[in-house]
């Protein structure tokens, strides 16, 4: 490891495949789609989502804490607690002023707005909850995590749409390299699998309408893909400078060796058709890690299952690699958790490096004839993986790429 390498010492996952790292990793290895018909969406054209099963916040966090938290904060907090425990950290022992929380959150929580704004619109403004703003703004997510962990270093929410979770890793890396903290709890959390959010994305024509086959709806790189499936969750990583991790005898799961970000400056929703910004972000990440394309053995793709994203991502991969390495798309199993996706997929990439196994992309029955990629499908693939990219691209052309290497 280089002196400015950043060690991943802990991860935490709350996803539609289950609560906890083990449940999510097993779900990914099984390649079992989690999309299912959602009773709350019966009146919408797209009536399915990927939801975290059995997420009982009262049991996991206690009712006295959870009552005032919107779902994105609940998800983040459960994930953060797992990640901190996984890192072997004791919040009573660390120097709290040196612990930062940097979380990608793409949007306000829209969970309560229909109810609260209903009161407002029916001329009852003094019946709005005093917590309506506090519980719903993105900054609340890292603020509540910091409050709960007693972390008193920098606390930031990062919003770059669907790239938020990965962008957060880049900010965290900068904070650690700059020396303004010793530990960062980072990643992303989002709870977009809600009727109001589904309705909004449906109007953008971004969602799959494969209502006859929800489990088959998220099919990245497949010829018949027709949009993404909304998911939710939290993917949290504990990062430290390698020297700091070594000094306390921590286990390093993998190394965050590089990061790159860019903007398409092309369109407010559609990606650049040649993946110009995505190409730039991947190349920047390679330079940051002082590696070349030939050193990368795997790409955890953004792979949303929208016609435009997957085509543009393929072109970007071809521009960077010529012949790209083995690719997988976790969204085929988990759906698209928006601002959380980057955190979840970063954690999955860390597990791939640690176990030297690439989980399969579900639902890839017929590769798009215009996409020439080695996509892992049907079953997990064991391979020698020295370094891997985790790609995230937000609408508006905000791109972020994290580069991870094995711990040794």
């Amino acid at each position: 490891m280089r002196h400015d390498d950043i060690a991943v010492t802990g991860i935490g996952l709350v996803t539609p495949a289950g609560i906890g790292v083990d449940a999510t990793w097993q779900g990914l290895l099984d390649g079992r789609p989690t999309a299912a018909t959602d009773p709350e969406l019966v009146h919408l054209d797209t009536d399915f989502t990927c939801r975290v099963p059995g997420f009982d916040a009262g049991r996991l966090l206690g009712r006295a804490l959870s009552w005032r938290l919107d779902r994105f904060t609940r998800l983040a907090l459960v994930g953060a607690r797992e990640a901190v425990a996984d890192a072997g950290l004791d919040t009573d022992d660390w120097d709290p002023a040196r612990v930062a929380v940097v979380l990608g959150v793409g949007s306000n929580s829209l969970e309560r707005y229909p109810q609260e704004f209903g009161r407002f619109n029916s001329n009852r403004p003094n019946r709005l909850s005093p917590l309506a703003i506090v519980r719903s703004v993105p900054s609340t997510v890292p603020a509540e995590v910091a409050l709960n962990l007693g972390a008193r270093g920098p606390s930031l929410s990062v919003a770059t749409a669907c790239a938020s979770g990965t962008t957060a890793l880049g900010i965290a890396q900068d904070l650690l390299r700059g020396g303004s903290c010793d530990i960062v709890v980072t990643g992303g959390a989002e709870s977009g699998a809600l009727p109001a959010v589904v309705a909004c994305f449906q109007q953008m024509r971004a969602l799959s309408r494969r209502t006859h086959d929800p489990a088959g709806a998220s099919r990245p790189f497949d010829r018949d893909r027709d949009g993404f499936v909304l998911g939710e969750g939290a993917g949290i990583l504990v990062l430290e400078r390698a020297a700091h991790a070594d000094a306390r005898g921590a286990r390093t799961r993998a190394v965050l060796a590089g990061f790159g970000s860019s903007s398409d400056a092309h369109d407010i929703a559609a990606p650049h058709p040649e993946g110009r910004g995505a190409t730039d972000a991947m190349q920047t990440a390679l330079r940051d890690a002082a590696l070349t394309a030939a050193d990368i053995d795997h790409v955890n793709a953004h792979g949303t299952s929208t016609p435009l994203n997957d085509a543009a991502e393929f072109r970007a991969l071809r521009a960077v690699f010529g012949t790209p390495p083995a690719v997988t798309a976790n969204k085929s199993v988990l759906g698209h958790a928006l601002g959380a996706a980057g955190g979840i997929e970063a954690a999955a990439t860390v597990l791939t490096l640690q176990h030297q196994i690439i989980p399969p992309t579900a639902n890839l029955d017929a590769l798009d004839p215009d996409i020439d990629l080695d996509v892992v499908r049907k079953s997990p693939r064991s391979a020698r993986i020295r370094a891997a990219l985790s790609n995230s691209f937000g609408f508006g052309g905000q791109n972020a790429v994290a580069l991870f290497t094995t711990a040794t």
Partner: protein
Amino acid sequence: MCATYDDIVGILVEELGQSREELSPETTFRELGIDSLALLELSVIVEERTGILLEGVTHGSSIAEAAAALGDALAPAAARSGDRPLSTADDRAPLKAGNQALSAAGESGR
């Protein structure tokens, strides 16, 4: 205790996640970890259900003191209207059993 005590306890348990067995008349809001916004939330729920603005209740107040404040505010208001509980016409809803002072506002979850 009086009906208003049961009402405050009901809100604390059903809306603010408190455990009923940890509540007593002498328990203060501070001891329950009720923060500034949670106290405001409590007062909005009380106002929504009764039309009464709960005044003079602080973190240091006990549940019994809050219940007494609500009872004092309800008494003259009830005398004026000749009816208990108080609720605005658009909020009027069937009363919950054993919850005479506070009526549900016609919306669940708040």
